[in-house]
Every structure is written in structure tokens, then in C-alpha cells.
């Protein structure tokens, strides 16, 4: 390949008349160089980006105008808390009591809704039928944190952090958590395949017996 054909750079066909002359002595394997000025917009944008650095650094770390991570997190959480308070003020609150939750237990729609929530959120640890995997068996008569409706509701809400149980209070609505209680009540005593060994205290009189006819 011959690349040393001489180019006439005054040739108007190359439409480079505004170019400064080629730099003398700069020819590398036939590659020559112009010494055109840098585009003005490029230089200006570069300076603007450079100027942005001290503005941002001083604004955040000296003059405290731009919020830091911590400040932004705090203000966002405060905003969220406001939204929650406002919503609770306008909507009927769900009073957590054995009776209130009992209104869900044994109700077919509540059990069906609870089952869906269970499959999506709980089955990973407690097994598809509540037989227990990483988490305890939910179908036997043994309970670690009490067997009242409100006990189960509280465990779902607050979780058991040191054992890996997620707190669902901020994720599931009170009604959804109650539907879960209804579902869990409905599978008591089913003794599914692969049931995990009992954990916790044996409760002879389980409220589950009330709805055994339905399961």
C-alpha cells in the first residue's frame, strides 16, 4: 500500500480552507496534523464543568446549602412520615386486637387473599404449605412467640430480626397482615408432607380447632 501520495492542501475540493497550515515536521507514517484552535463551545463547557466542582464541594461540605446523603435521607423520611400520618388521619385505623383479627379468621375471601400473600412473601422460608423450611412449621400446635391471633399478627408486623424473619409492617397493610393470620389459622393441623420438627411451646387448645371444619 502506498500512502505517500502528496496531497495538495490548498485544494478547495477538500473544503478545509479555514484550516491553519499543517504543522511542519509532523508527518507520521503519512499522517499529518493541523493546528486548529480548540472549538470555543468545548473550551467553555470544560471551564463550566471545572467551575461546577468548587461550587458543589463548597455548597455541600462548607456552606451546607446542598443536602448530604444523611440530610436527604432524614428529610425524605420525614416527608414519608407526614404522608403516613395524613393518610391514617383520613382513613379508619385498624385497631389491633384479637377480636379485630378474628373477624378475618375463617372468612373464605380473607383466607384466599392471605394464601396469595403467603405464596408471594412467606413460602420461601416457611414452605409452600406452611410445613417449615428455614422458618418454623406453621401447621403444628407448637408456637415460639405465642399462638393468639394477635401474637401471630405481631410477629408478622415486627419480624424476628435475629432469626431472619422480616418485619412486614411497613410493607403489608394491616388488613393484609390480618388476611395472613387468617390463612395461617386455616392450615393449622394439616400436617403437610415434609413437616419440620416442632419448635417452641405446645398449645393444646388452639383457636384453630374452631375452623377445622372449613379446612
Amino acid at each position, binding site marked *: *500500500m502506498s500512502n505517500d501520495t502528496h496531497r495538495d492542501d490548498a485544494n478547495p475540493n477538500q473544503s478545509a480552507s479555514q484550516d491553519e497550515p499543517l504543522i511542519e*515536521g*509532523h508527518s*507520521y507514517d503519512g499522517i499529518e*496534523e493541523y493546528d*486548529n*484552535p480548540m472549538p470555543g463551545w468545548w473550551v467553555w463547557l*470544560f471551564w463550566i*464543568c471545572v467551575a461546577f466542582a468548587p461550587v458543589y464541594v463548597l455548597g455541600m461540605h462548607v456552606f451546607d446549602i446542598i443536602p448530604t446523603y444523611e440530610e436527604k435521607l432524614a428529610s425524605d423520611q420525614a416527608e414519608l412520615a407526614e404522608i403516613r400520618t395524613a393518610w391514617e388521619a383520613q382513613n379508619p385505623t385498624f385497631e389491633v386486637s384479637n377480636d379485630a383479627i378474628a373477624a378475618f379468621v375463617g372468612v373464605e375471601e380473607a383466607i384466599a387473599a392471605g394464601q396469595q400473600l403467603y405464596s408471594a*412473601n412467606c413460602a420461601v422460608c416457611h414452605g409452600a404449605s406452611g410445613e417449615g423450611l428455614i422458618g418454623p412449621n406453621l401447621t403444628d400446635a407448637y408456637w415460639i412467640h405465642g399462638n393468639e391471633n394477635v401474637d401471630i399478627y405481631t410477629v408478622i408486623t415486627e419480624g424476628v430480626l435475629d432469626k431472619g424473619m422480616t418485619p412486614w409492617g411497613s410493607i403489608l397493610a394491616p388488613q393484609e397482615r390480618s388476611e395472613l393470620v387468617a390463612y395461617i389459622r386455616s392450615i393449622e393441623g394439616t400436617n403437610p408432607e415434609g413437616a419440620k420438627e416442632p419448635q417452641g411451646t405446645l398449645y393444646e387448645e388452639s383457636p384453630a380447632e374452631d375452623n377445622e371444619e372449613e379446612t
Partner: protein
Amino acid sequence: METTQPHAYRESRGELVHFDDGIVRLFVLATAIWGFVGMLVGALIALQMPFWQANLGPYLTFGRLRPLHTNAVIFAFAGNAIFAAVYYSTQRLVKARMFSDLMSRIHFWGWQTIIVSAAITLPLGITTSKEYAELEWPIDILITVIWVVFAVNFFWTLKVRREKHLYVAIWFYIATIVTVAVLHIGNSLAIPAGLFKSYPIYAGVQDAFIQWWYGHNAVAFFLTTPFLGLMYYFLPKAAERPVFSYRLSIVHFWSLVFIYIWAGPHHLNYTSIPEWAATLGMVFSVMLWMPSWGGMINGLFTLRGAWHKLRDSVVLRMYVIGITFYGMSTFEGPMLSVKTVNALSHYTDWTIGHVHAGALGWNGFMTFGMIYWLLPRLWKTKLWSPRLANAHFWIGTIGMLLYVMAMYSAGVTQGLMWRAFDEAGRLVYPDFMETVIQIVPMYWVRLIGGLMYLAGVILMLVNLFKTIATAPSKLDDSSITVS
């Protein structure tokens, strides 16, 4: 200047310099073959995302193949492409044969040994678990040794050069060779605990900082500076036009290498790093925008008065697409480093889209363009099928557009779903799986785009081997006479 001169010229017209073209042919072959392998693995892991049954465990699961994909496309495909570019252009730019043919061969075979070791150990689960630096310490030492051989060979060639000035491409090669050595050694310092296991000498946040100082500057000094060097040689050669601005090349070279090295902490935004470090990473990333674009401008403006050549030159068209994608991803990078944008984009597929715009567009297309330009010159014949090369251009361009559009869409969707609250102040999508299922269709689109890009590479391989088949049986080294 470069011709195959008959011997009689030697006495009459000064010193005859033969270039080592054989080593360039080897690196070009390795580039094309490893490119195919690396992108094939990429297509498999792209399939594994929407179709988990494609995880053929334990050796061929996503967790083990993903680092194999990244190592193969970065260090095998892009790496061999860089070496091909360096060995071809340096000899011509400084009018000297590489200092040692033996060292060149040690470099070539050593590098392929490293790649094969990676291809064996990563599926076996042998990994340091540091991103883009997964290879264990014995391989790290081999990388260091081979890199030093490369460096000595390169710098000795510069020492005995017959051209006083060093052209801008050479500056970029120098920055690459020096900085990659510093980065690789700095990040890989570890205490061995057996042949296949080691612990980094850094811990916790310091380890994370060193890792992303390395990771970010691997992008800078393995995927950006050597490819800018490649562009500065092969683009004006293919366009047969002088470089637009020497002044611009000086300013954007020095600003790029100075500013890039500070920007790493933006990879750790919204983690447990101190706020000032995140700020540092962000402001340096913003400052990096124009230095990055300096290369794009000098590339595209070099084509002034030569745009009509794009009609007939698939090489130039590939460079234009490559440089355009470089411009897009080097705008996007600073933008993603801004904390408020990062709050949406971090941990989403947007990042995957961003790196592939750079990798497929810039690294891929610059490499393909170089290969199509080199093939007839290295094998002293005609390109077997310009039409096939044209098909490669189109299928590759459309494929990568599909790829990045799918990932942008998936990333923004994920980011918005993760942060969505309802009127009661509760998460709208508390279940992570919901956000995954939502983007599965985008994963399929990404796979189609990736397969199209891979099909383009297969067309290139066919063209390459068919071209080589028409080459003369004896390939003499090219040479020039230096007075």
C-alpha cells in the same frame, strides 16, 4: 511510505527497516476468535436472565459465566485488539521494528495462556470476587510478568526510534502501559492462602475504594486510552486526512489522564463510603466530560472534507458509529455519576446499558473497523467480501441499538418501581420479584440485540478466514527505507 521494496534499494537509498507484521497477524486472529467466544458467553448469560433453565450448573451458571464473559471481552477481545493496534502502528509511527521478536511472541503466547487460565478457573468457581480482577494470584503474577515484557519491548522500541517526535497515538499507548501496570499491581496485592485462594491486603471500605479505583480506570486505561490511540492512527489513515487539531489532542490527552484517575468513587455512590469521597468522585466525573469529548471531536472533525468517503468505506462508517457511541457513553458516564441521577440508576440495568454502549459501540466497532482495514494490508490481498462487511456494519448497529434501548428501558423501570410509594406511604412494589418480572420482556429484547451483534462478528470471522485463504503463501514483512 510503506512498500515491499526489492533488495537492490538497500545500498542506494539508506537503511531498510522491516516491520514485524507476523505478530500483528497473530493478534488480529486472536482478537476475532476471542471476540466470538466472549460474545457467545455473553449471549448465553443474556439468555439465563429471562430463562433460568439455561443455567447449566454448577459450572455454567450465571454467577460463574458472567465474569468469564467480562474477562473474555475486555482482556481477550479488546486486549488483543489493543496489542494488534500497538504493534502495527508503533513500528510505523516511530520507523523501527519492534525491539525483540522473541519478546513480542512471549507477549502473545503469554497473554493467550492467561486467557485460557481464566476460561478454566472462572467456571470452576476460582475467583477473588473483585469485579474485572477475578483471576487468582498465580494468574495475576503471570499477567504482571507478561505486561512487563510488553512494556520493555515497547519502550525499547521507542528508545531506538528513527522519528524524533512522538505522535499522539504513542502518548495514549504510553499512558495505557504505565497506568494498567500500576492499577493491576495495586489492586491485586493479596496474601495467598493456597494455590487458588488469596485475601486482599485491604479490608472493608479501603478494599472497595482500591477495587473501584482499579475498576474505573480499567475502563479508562484499557478501554479508552488505547482505543483513542488506535483511533488517532487508523482513522486518519483510512480517511487520508490530516488530524483536525494538534492543540486539542494535547489538551484533551493531559486533561483526560489527569482527571480520569480520581473519578472511581462514583461506583460506590450510596454505599458506606464517606460523603466527601462520593463528592470527589462525582465532581471529577463531571469534569471528565469535555476531556472525553475532545477525542470524539478530533476524530469526527478529522473527517471534514472526507464525509463522502463514508459511502464506499465500511471502515470509516464503523469508526463514525464507534466514535459517536464513545461520545454518548462519555456523556452518560458523568451524568450517571451525579448523585441525584445515581439514586435512580444505581443497581439497575441502566448501568448494563451504559457499559454496553461503550463496549459494543466504541470498543467493538473501532476494533472491527481496524480489522477490516488491516486484513488486506496484512495478508496482501483483497477483502474477500465488502458486502459481507457492510452486512456486519448494519446488523451490528441495529443489534446494539436494540441492546442498549432494552437496558435503558429496563433500568429506568426498575429504578422507578423500587422508589414508588402509594398514597398511604407504603412501597407500591414491596416484593422484589415484581420488579424482576416486569423487565423480563426487555431481557428478551436484549438477547435478540446481542444475538444480532454476535451474528455480525460471525460474518466478520467468515470474511477474515476467506480473505486469508486468498493470501499469497509467503507473506513478506512490510518495509520502509529510512534515509
